[in-house]
């Protein structure tokens, strides 16, 4: 695939992340403001709340999409930065290592998400 396509996918992932990450950050890190606005979510980081959320099919889809988009966008950006200081001969190796890191992180993150969903 041409480099411009990978770049376009990264832009698409960024747009998706802008929505998913805003929801995630708002619900996980701004609970005090939400409570002040009349929306009390309780202790969203308690074990009971985390496992209850994890058993929802909507959350499963949300977090798998989130994980894929975040890893793709983040590692595409990291690769672009590192390519600037990598000699041409080593650029293929660099791309391979970044891809490997992304696949391992996605596999682990997806495993945790699916294991929480299935209980």
């Amino acid at each position: 695939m041409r480099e411009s396509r990978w770049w376009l996918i990264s832009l698409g992932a960024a747009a998706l992340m802008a929505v998913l990450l805003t929801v995630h950050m708002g619900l996980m890190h701004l609970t005090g403001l939400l409570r002040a606005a009349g929306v009390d979510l309780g202790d969203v980081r308690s074990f009971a709340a985390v496992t209850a959320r994890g058993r929802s099919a909507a959350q499963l889809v949300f977090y798998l999409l989130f994980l894929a988009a975040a890893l793709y966008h983040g590692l595409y950006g990291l690769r672009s930065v590192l390519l600037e200081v990598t000699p041409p001969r080593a650029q293929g190796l660099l791309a391979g290592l970044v891809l490997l890191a992304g696949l391992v992180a996605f596999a682990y993150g997806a495993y945790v998400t699916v294991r929480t969903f299935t209980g």
Partner: protein
Amino acid sequence: MRSAEAVRLHTPRRRLGVRGWVYAGRYGLDRYLYVLQRVSGLGLVLYLFLHIYETGVRLRGEVAWTATMALFRHPVFVFLEFVVFAGFVYHALNGLRLIVAELGWLLGAPARPVYPYRSSLRRHRPWVYALMLLTGVLLALAAADIFALPG
């Protein structure tokens, strides 16, 4: 033929290396926004990997999870949470601005280059100020929540 000294003086420095990432030269504000976009992006990638590992703690049971969450209530981690939030807000808003500019929107209509020139960067500048203002407002709200309001 020019002297070696004249050639050296008139040849642009090609290899600034990593210093070139933070050297704005005559590009000013937009260059610093670009540097901050990179720094925040690299920080968020690092945090992403730590966050993926940390979410896996839940598989080790309630005791391990509760101990990890108690650790994150330490003031150092609370401050780092704000730093991550700030990085996210800036990176997301500036990134959306860059995508919009990349698509050719909000740059103004093409015009003849009549002196004094007004570049698309300058026509776009009000959006940069609006972005900074919005970032500041969101960070003030986040600071109030993370440091002052009970979670």
